[in-house]
């Protein structure tokens, strides 16, 4: 997910000069990019010690928190954009955090692995859980505890009265707008409170 084209595609969804909160910001590469290329200002949230260190090294603001504890520290609408890039699938409270994302951000951007991508369907059809470049884990050791599809997210967003502003797939860094649920390994959504 950290390749350049993917990062640039997601960055294009973030308006210039936005105040950004990046949930599960990893090593801070995206925030760094947003700060340099799009004059954004913001903070990353991370739980992993190594990633916190990497962010401090880069000069990206990072706050070490466990997202499963929620976003109580952040006020309603206190950020222009809240990002969850490859984070949602790791969260026990994925639905709550989706709502929290829309509460704290005027817009939310979520990207996650789309389990309905055709190679995954093929694998399931053969009777095995998919193991791919995008989903490199075995079923018994995967950190992806929330297994969802592009379409599943649309349903969840509707259920929580979120308005989807943009929705597309990403495959090998290219944006997939036709049949993304079958043709893209990654689902990307931009949304706001309804």
């Amino acid at each position: 997910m950290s390749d350049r084209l993917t990062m640039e595609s997601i960055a294009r969804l973030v308006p210039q000069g936005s105040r950004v909160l990046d949930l599960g910001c990893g090593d801070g590469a995206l925030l760094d990019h947003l700060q340099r290329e799009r004059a954004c200002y913001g903070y990353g949230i991370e739980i992993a010690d190594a990633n916190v260190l990497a962010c401090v090294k880069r000069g990206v603001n990072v706050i070490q928190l466990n997202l499963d504890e929620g976003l109580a520290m952040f006020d309603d609408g206190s950020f222009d954009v809240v990002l969850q890039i490859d984070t949602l699938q790791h969260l026990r409270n994925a639905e709550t955090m989706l709502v929290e994302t829309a509460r704290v951000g005027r817009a939310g951007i979520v990207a996650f692995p789309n389990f309905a991508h055709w190679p995954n369907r093929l694998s399931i059809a053969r009777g095995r859980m998919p193991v791919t470049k995008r989903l490199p884990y075995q079923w018994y050791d995967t950190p992806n505890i929330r297994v969802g599809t592009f379409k599943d997210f649309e349903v969840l967003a509707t259920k929580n009265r979120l308005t989807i502003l943009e929705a597309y797939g990403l495959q090998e860094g290219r944006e997939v707008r036709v049949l993304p649920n079958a043709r893209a390994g990654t689902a990307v959504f931009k949304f706001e409170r309804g």
Partner: protein
Amino acid sequence: MTFSDPLPLRSGAAIRGYALAYETYGTLNSDKSNAVLICHALNASHHVAGSYAGQPGSQGWWDTMIGPGKPVDTDRFFVIGVNNLGSCFGSTGPMHVNPDTGKVYGADFPVMTVEDWVDAQARLLDGLGIERLAAVMGGSLGGMQALSWTLQYPQRVRNGVVIASAPNLTAENIAFNEVARRAIVTDPDFHGGHFYEHGVVPKRGLRIARMIGHITYLSDDVMNEKFGRQLREGIELKYSTQDIEFQIESYLRYQGDKFSEYFDANTYLLITRALDYFDPALQYEGNLAKALARATARFLLVSFTTDWRFAPRRSRELVKALLDNRRDVSYAEIDAPHGHDAFLLEDPRYLGAVRSYFERIEKEMAA
């Protein structure tokens, strides 16, 4: 460094003719932009790093953190350690003579606040010709001073590094301080704080104060791991009530004895009181975000998960207040078992975060 001009204090009193003990490490660069001030906590001094020649065991109290090649690298930064007023390691304190009376201060030493200390430190920097600090840093009570620097002298601080600290003390924390103070002032050798003239030291009180402190600086887990229910001698209970039987008793008594040999009783009272009083949000109806609005520095905050005396949630309050003010802040919450003491210990995640932060400071200095 001695100061003849009186220093006005928050209490309304003033102190004149005082001295501040300090040490420096490394070299101040030509544009004087690489100075880092280190603020100490209760039981520490200006001797933050290194050892004195020919004195084994004289290692500075933050030697894990500060020195050549260390996270706060004295090959790159000019580090200043300063002993606070009222302390007992060289700066003017209750054991010194009050120039107004010609008598030893004792209990009459003026009550100092964190803000007063910061004012005194600022005068030291004036004397050293340093207008602006690359960073001010401290842990615990030292962290409160670092925070206060960013509020009292925002234009003089580029970075605040606040470790295992809090925006104020909780009632429980004040309570622990009060128990320690009562132990000291009720010691018959205390003589209302004027024990110097009686040629005695309230050691019993100091010992108990230190024992209480030590319990609160450790976590339950680390204490159990270190001592458990281990007996000092053999495996049989003695059925005594006053003997030292458990290892933990032996440890606490040893720490108490050691402390009572060198620490000043009035200093203990003064420093714990400064801790109790610190509360920058007080004059903003308790609104910490408003209190921190003045700060312009960038911040690194660190807390430790098992520190129950300066718990992570207190650091998070500071983080939130800085976020509300849109300040640059990074926060590391280190999952260390050692309680409050962790801030003085070696932990690669903790030291790594501080190292990375100071590397960034250096990069910005060069830019």
